[in-house]
C-alpha cells in the first residue's frame, strides 16, 4: 500500500547535508536570477551615463522610470494601459469561449469535423495580420477591429488544441461510460471535459501571450490609444523613452495575467 510508507524524523548527517545542499542550490538560483537583471539594468544605465551608448536610440533605465512617473502623473499611463488591457481581456475571453465551443461541436460530430478540418488547418497557418485591412473594412477602425484581431489570433489555436485534447481521451474510459448507458452529454461532462482540463489550462496560458500579440498588433494597425499606440507613436516621433516605458508596462501587465492563470493551474492541481 503506497499510503503507509514509513516516515522517520531522525535523519542522518548525510540527509541533513543533502537538504542543506538543495537549499543552497535554490538560494543560488534565486540570487543569480536577480543578479542577471540587476547587472543588465546597471550596465545599461552605466554605459548610457558615460556616453558609450546613445540614450536617444536605446534610452536608459532612469529615463524609462522618469517617463513612467510622468505618465502616471498626467494620467496617460493608467488610461492607455486600461485601453489595451480591456481589448486584450475581451479578445481573450471571446476567443477562449468561442474556440472551446467550436472544438466541442467538432468533437460531437465526426462528419462535421471532417468537413471543417482542412479549413482550420489553413486558417491556422495563415498569418492573421494579413487580414488587418479586411477587418478594418468590415468592422471599422477602432476598438472592435483590435478585439477582432485578438480573437482571430487566439481562436484557431484554442479550437485546435482543445479538439486534439478531446480526441485523445482514453477510448477505454469512453467505452466504460457507454457500458453504463451514458449519453453523449454525460460522456462530455463526466469524462471529456474534466480529463481535458490540463490542456485547457495550457490553452489559457498560450492565449494570454497570443491575446497581447493580437491587441498590440491591432493597435499598430488602427488605434487612438493604448500601449501599442504609444509604442508606434513614440517610434514615429523618435521618443524612444516612451517606446521603452510602454514596453516595460506591457511586460508587467502580460506577466500579471500569466501569473493569474498559473494561480488557477496551481489551484487545479491541488
Amino acid at each position: 500500500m503506497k499510503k503507509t510508507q514509513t516516515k522517520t524524523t531522525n535523519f542522518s548527517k548525510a540527509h541533513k547535508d543533502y537538504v542543506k545542499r538543495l537549499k543552497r542550490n535554490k538560494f543560488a538560483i534565486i540570487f543569480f536570477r536577480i543578479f542577471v537583471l540587476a547587472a543588465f539594468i546597471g550596465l545599461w544605465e552605466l554605459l548610457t551615463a558615460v556616453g558609450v551608448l546613445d540614450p536617444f536610440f536605446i534610452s536608459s533605465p532612469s529615463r524609462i522610470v522618469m517617463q513612467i512617473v510622468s505618465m502616471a502623473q498626467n494620467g496617460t499611463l493608467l488610461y492607455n494601459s486600461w485601453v489595451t488591457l480591456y481589448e486584450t481581456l475581451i479578445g481573450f475571453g471571446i476567443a477562449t469561449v468561442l474556440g472551446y465551443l467550436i472544438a466541442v461541436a467538432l468533437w460531437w460530430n465526426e462528419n462535421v469535423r471532417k468537413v471543417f478540418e482542412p479549413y482550420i488547418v489553413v486558417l491556422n497557418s495563415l498569418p492573421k495580420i494579413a487580414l488587418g485591412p479586411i477587418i478594418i473594412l468590415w468592422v471599422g477602425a477602432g476598438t472592435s477591429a483590435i478585439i477582432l484581431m485578438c480573437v482571430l489570433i487566439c481562436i484557431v489555436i484554442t479550437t485546435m488544441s482543445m479538439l486534439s485534447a478531446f480526441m485523445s481521451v482514453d477510448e477505454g474510459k469512453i467505452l466504460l461510460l457507454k457500458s453504463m448507458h451514458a449519453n453523449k452529454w454525460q460522456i462530455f461532462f463526466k469524462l471529456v471535459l474534466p480529463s481535458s482540463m490540463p490542456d485547457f489550462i495550457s490553452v489559457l496560458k498560450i492565449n494570454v501571450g497570443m491575446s497581447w500579440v493580437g491587441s498590440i498588433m491591432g493597435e499598430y494597425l488602427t488605434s487612438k490609444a493604448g500601449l501599442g499606440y504609444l509604442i508606434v507613436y513614440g517610434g514615429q516621433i523618435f521618443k524612444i523613452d516612451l517606446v521603452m516605458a510602454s514596453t516595460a508596462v506591457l511586460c508587467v501587465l502580460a506577466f500579471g495575467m500569466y501569473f493569474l492563470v498559473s494561480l488557477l493551474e496551481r489551484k487545479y492541481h491541488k
Partner: protein
Amino acid sequence: MKNILTFKNVNYFYQTKTDEIFALNNVNFNVEEESFASLVGPSGCGKTTILSLTAGLLKPSSGEILLDGENKIDRTKIGYMFQKDHLLEWRSVWKNIALGIEIQKPENKDEKLAKAEDLLKKYDLYSFKNQKPRQLSGGMRQRVALIRTLVLEPKLLLLDEPFSALDYQTRLSVCDDVYSIIKSEKKSALLVTHDISEALSMSDKILVLSSRPATIKDNIFLDLEGVTPLKKRKDKNFSDLFNKIWSELTNEKNSNKND
C-alpha cells in the same frame, strides 16, 4: 436453473474499408443464473466481440442474444469490467463508485448509495473513500472498479481480462477477492481470459472457442473442490483439465498453421 444469457446461432461480421471479417460463426451457449462462465480461446478469436455483443455495444449480424429471457439488451442489467480499472483520477474513490449512479439516475438512488457504502466497508475500502485513485495499489483499484460495477446491481457481470494488468501475486489475491464478491453478491459472470488456470480456478463452466471465425468448440463443466480460486487450484483434476484445454487450444493453433 434459469439462463441469464443465451447466444442462439449468433454470427458476426466486422466491416472494414477493404474487407469483411467473419468473426463469429454460429455461436451457441448459455450462462446460467448465479454461475461463473469463462471464455478461453486463441488470441484475436473474438472473445471480446462476444462481450461487446452481450453489452449491446455491437449488434449481431444474425442470430439472437437473450439477456434475462428477453431479446432486447437492457444495459442496466449488465456490468462491464475492463482490463484497466479506468478509474477517473480527478474523482475520489467514492465519486468513482457513484459514477454509474450519477449517469443512470435510478429511482432507488439512495438505496444504491447505501449499498455502495456497505460494499466499501465489506471489502476494506471504506477508509479510502475520500482518497484519489492514485493513492491506491493496483489490487485496490481493481476492487474499487468492481464495486463501481456492482453498485448498479447488474444481473450479469462481463469481465474482460480484468486481472491481466496486475502482477502475478496481486492477481491471485484479487482473483480470490473478485470471485468471493461475485459469489456472495449472487451475481452471474462471464469472464474472458487468456489464462487457462485463471479460468479453471474461477469458473463453473469453460467455453473453449476456436480461432476465427470463432465457434464454441467445447463446453466444460467444472466441479473443483475448494471455496476460493486459490484453493481450487489444488484440486487433483486441475492439471488434467489444464492440459485438456491447453491441447485443444494448441491443436487449434496447429490446424490453423496447416490450413
